[in-house]
């Protein structure tokens, strides 16, 4: 897949050209492309004068980074303790079986990605599911269809 690398210089310009800027640069690339394209990692390594192996190691260490493209809609299921004890696991099962993918995967039509996140800090509203930026609070097992439809 070809990605538009012309945005990289803009991103690079935001931070000092030092190895310390690696995480910040990768975060901005992730935000721009919704994942970290291989070409971008190579460019970053060159620009910051960091070995590609180190760029790879940082990109795979932090949960915020993904080496695979994500779907149009990213469904984030909060798996904080409160969400867990209020049944987030059952909601995850439902969403996974409805989409035929597991958490961390993307549907083959690139429409949906399911992610499990540790805690979004909205515990009083547990369980919480976030689709792109939309919050669904106090989600019940039988509401997953509605969530997928975007209602």
């Amino acid at each position, binding site marked *: 897949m070809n990605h538009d690398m012309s945005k990289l210089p803009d991103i690079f310009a935001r931070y000092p050209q*030092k*190895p*310390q*800027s*690696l*995480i*910040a640069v*990768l*975060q901005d690339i992730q935000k721009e492309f919704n994942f970290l394209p291989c070409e971008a990692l190579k460019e970053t390594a060159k620009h910051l004068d960091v070995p590609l192996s*180190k760029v790879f*190691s*940082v990109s795979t*260490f*932090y*949960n*915020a*980074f993904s080496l695979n493209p994500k779907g149009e809609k990213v469904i984030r299921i909060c*798996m*904080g*303790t*409160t969400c*867990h*004890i*209020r*049944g987030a696991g*059952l909601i995850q*099962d*439902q969403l996974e*079986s*409805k989409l035929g993918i597991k958490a961390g995967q993307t549907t083959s039509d690139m429409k949906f990605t399911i992610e499990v*996140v*540790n*805690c*979004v*800090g*909205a*515990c*009083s*509203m*547990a369980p*919480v599911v976030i689709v792109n930026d939309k*919050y669904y*609070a106090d989600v*019940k*097992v*039988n509401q997953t269809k509605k969530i997928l439809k975007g209602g």
Partner: protein
Amino acid sequence: MAITKVASPKDLDKLQKQCQTEQDKHKRKLMVCCGPGCLANGAAEIVTEFKSQLKKKRIKGFSVEAMKETGCHGFCEQGPLVVVEPQGTFYTRVKKKDVERIVEETLRNNKVVDDLLYTAPDEKTYRDYREIPFYKHQKRIALRNLGHINQCDIRDYIAVGGYQALAKALNKMSPSKVIEEVKTSGLRGRGGGGFPAGRKWESCARLEERPHYVICNGDEGDPGAFMDRAIMEGDPHSVLEGMAICAYAVDSSEGYIYVREEYPLAVQFLQEAIREAEEYGLLGDNILGTDFSFHIKISRGGGAFVCGESSALMKSVAGEVGEPRAKYIRSVQKGLYDRPTVLNNVESYANVPVIIDRGGKWFAKIGTETSAGTKAFSLVGKVVNGGLIEVPMGTTLREIVFDIGGGIRNDRPFKAVQTGGPSGGCLPDDKLDLSVDFDTLTKAGSMMGSGGMIVMDEGTCVVDVAKYFLKFLVDESCGKCTPCREGLYQLYLLAVKISEGMATENDLDKMEQLSGVIIDASLCGLGKSGPNPFLSTIRYFRDEYLTHIRDKRCPAGVCKALITYEVDAQACDGCMACIHACAANAISGKKGEVHTIDQTKCDKCGACFAVCNRHAIKVA
């Protein structure tokens, strides 16, 4: 309006008066809570609606500027919240359609909209939020401004005395006097470790090597905790002021706030706050006209729990993989870029301005002898009144869960309260009278942690909770030490085995043994405290583990392999709701007839249980 830099304490006094006059113009203020919970429930929509209604209706004596978007007011369970001050009129679960009524009735006609007031489970309705038990039993220091000032406005912060403590420190106190004051206060690190902040500052200040760094840990990785998020979003200037005071005390000119990527609003608001403070000359070069300069930068975390650990956090700030190092030399001595570094968390810094302002002795009088001051908690889980709270150290768990939290939802029996996040533990009902302070909780096998407090009822399975935390830690272990990386994984597999009814009692012994090894042989706190979720649950709930092992039964009805869903023929009215909800097509029956579940098809997703209004689906 052009901003003139505040060049002296006198300037600051003048500015404070100016800001106060601006505030006093408004006889009434309308606070819309935009904390994490309320936002998730649509607070942003309510703000927009208020703006448009106020513009349309033009209420005499009430301008749009008197409406404030505040940080977390605390009572998240009842959100979105709208408060009218100074009366304290407290509207709960406000919807977009209610906004017009609030504007017309309360703002125009000075009347209370009764049906939006908070009604307690005992049917009592409260007009003033300060009377509600949830608020009445609290004492707020770190959260002092949350819910009362506009979260993104430095002038609001200055009006309530903001940056006065910094001015006092810079002009009336020597760095060593500042450290002395913090030592006198007895302030211990609020991130969980509980190390005395004053002593940490002192060790850093003494080191001759330069530069010194000041870092604020806003990584708040504990699931179920959102105090720091609420402070960073709701009162960012208190954190900046605390850091600046610390920087003055330890002679640092460069600071970092490490914020989790999952908190984009916190990042945004802190960035705005830093920019504002620099414009006013309260951060940056020559603060308040003195020769003290301090710059703060934001470093966004990448979603790794281990980065809450000091040495891992510092590596991450430096753009590297966040692996902890052995701390033969403490991070105060060799921290960021191997330089002396003070690292405290958000809540600790938020306490500092108050300590400088009112004196260490005043602070030390609050709380217990060894744990001074107050502590913020996110009180969540199966509790009636969940939300953000702050209480004096030494308050008992019972007071927190029952007086403030209002007890357990649906009147079910209390089972346990989990504190300290993944490194903490579960405390049962006979520990409810324990005093909440650093030492007591640790002695009981849990810990204070950063302040997540998750209440559990009978419907929570402790084996499942232990399994949950172990899974969390397996995912979050950085992988450096084998005992943590492999050991926790084996513990997790054994917990899974128990939850599936496949384990023997021998497995419990194995788990206990393995826990000892992990504790002894791991490098950092994540590994060393990793077995805690298992150890504390087995300590207090051994019987429940044994029921899973011997009787192949999950008393809480949670472990899928050990439960079945059945229809209670007495209660079922044949409404077919469960049939429609069942994705596995396991339920059959006609309208008006009792339904039945085919156990061979049932995948135990719980959908039938969730939709049945008559509580006719039983878990056995």
